């Protein structure tokens, strides 16, 4: 990771927090906006009690499983749809139709099938985060230069080898564009999926809900922050992986 970037990120965060704290201390912003100090101390309390981590663990489990699914299915289907015309034609209408569906509305149906379970939540996250990855992958495949495929075919590569060894690496830069959006959405949806009701009562999204229902914006901010933090962490991990895999590319990042 870029040292300079880290530094700038750190400075930005500190400045933002400082402004917020100043506004809060001067009481220029309403009390419900809380203040970094209050949020910080609440966060510390939750860290000490370990509560934050148990909640984060449940949430992370859901979002990472979903993201893994997004990654595997998004890339595999995206490549298949981009490369094989019939597959692309088959999937195009489904994607076009399902993409704008407000997924929350599908909840009752998912619930019948999978219960109020992690499966339902994971599916919900998956259904939202899938599309950016799929669309970017498909567009990436369309952008692959024809001669690369020809050269591979020419050397007797099988369809699978072409997909795996030519199409995949050639569209990888664009795939990562999509993955980055998907990853962010995963964390956003982690919250929404826990809003529907949580049976074991664990999860950062559930914490937000609970705090919100009790009018505790400070606690809400703690959870929101922690989600942001986790999101940031994983975003950086993704960028690092990207830089490694795209070492050959001019914009490895």
């Amino acid at each position, binding site marked *: 990771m870029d040292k300079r970037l880290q530094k700038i990120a750190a400075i930005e965060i500190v400045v933002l927090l400082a402004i917020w704290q100043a506004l809060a201390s001067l009481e220029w912003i309403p009390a419900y906006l809380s203040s970094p100090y209050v949020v910080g101390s609440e966060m510390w309390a939750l860290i000490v009690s370990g509560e934050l981590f148990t909640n984060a663990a449940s949430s992370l489990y859901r979002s990472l499983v979903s993201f893994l699914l997004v990654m595997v299915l998004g890339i595999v289907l995206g490549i298949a749809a981009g490369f094989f015309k019939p597959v692309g034609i088959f999937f195009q209408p489904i994607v076009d139709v399902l993409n704008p569906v407000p997924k929350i509305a599908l909840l009752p149906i998912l619930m019948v099938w999978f219960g109020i379970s992690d499966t339902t939540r994971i599916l919900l996250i998956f259904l939202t985060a899938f599309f950016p990855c799929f669309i970017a992958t498909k567009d990436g495949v369309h952008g692959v230069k024809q*001669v*690369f495929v*020809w*050269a*591979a*075919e*020419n*050397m*007797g*590569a099988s369809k699978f*080898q072409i997909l795996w*060894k*030519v199409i995949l*690496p*050639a569209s*990888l830069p664009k795939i990562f564009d999509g993955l980055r959006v998907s990853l962010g959405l995963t964390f956003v949806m982690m919250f929404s999926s826990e809003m529907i009701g949580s049976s074991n009562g664990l999860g950062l999204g559930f914490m937000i809900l609970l705090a919100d229902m009790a009018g505790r914006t400070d606690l809400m901010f703690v959870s929101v922050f922690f989600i942001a933090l986790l999101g940031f962490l994983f975003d950086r991990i993704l960028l690092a992986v990207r830089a490694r895999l*795209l070492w*050959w*590319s*001019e914009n490895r990042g």
Partner: protein
Amino acid sequence: MENKTPAIEIEKLGKVYTRGKEEVTAIQEISLKIPEGKFVSIVGPSGCGKSTFLHIVGGFIPKSSGKVRIRGKEVDKPGPDRGMMFQESALFPWKNVFDNVAWGLEIQGMEKSKRDEVVEHYLKLVNLWDFRKNLPSELSGGMKQRISLARVLAFNPDVLLMDEPFGALDAQTREKMQVELQRIWQESNKSVMFVTHDIDEAVFLSDIVVVFSGRPAVVKEIIEIDFQRPRTLDVHKTQEFMDIRNHIWDLLHQEQGTSDEEGM
């Protein structure tokens, strides 16, 4: 020889590119029979349809009419029996030079130690062993072309299809590559189909030179060249060489000016 199955047989081949409602006829009608083990050059004006022709023989793009057979088998898709060297660089930008050359061998399932040996051999042949760890984007135009050459030679197909393989090379390197190509071809029993702009090169290397007309391409003349093999660069100075060269030159000169002006 004539009654054996020809290595390459092209029958009334035609190609029309369409884009929306417009049509461009790239190849009018070409018929050709190339016996096994021959070195065939194709020359013709810029934009007449040489690359298109090679792409069809390679099985990369569909033809509009006619038939293409390699050793009696109809061509309908690319295959490792025909090694193609494209006019533009087709090196994978995500693999370094070594891995680019090794790629095809790996696909063919050649074992690693053998593969490394072969790759080293051909990279040294094109004078680029020292650049094996570089990425294609870090090479000059001529270097990329030499890597592509190494790649297709290492791959060792029965039929070599080469689209202006030496176009970006300086005269010296080009000569060296010509000599090497001739040697490799002679040692094996390959058939070569070689597109070039350099009439000297065509005459020097080929058993047969096929002259294409301007677009839409038809075969203007087929010239057999039977200097003894192996040929050395001295061949260039013989009268016979000069005559053939000038003849082709004249043929092409007739084409000049008609090639692109016909409109589309």
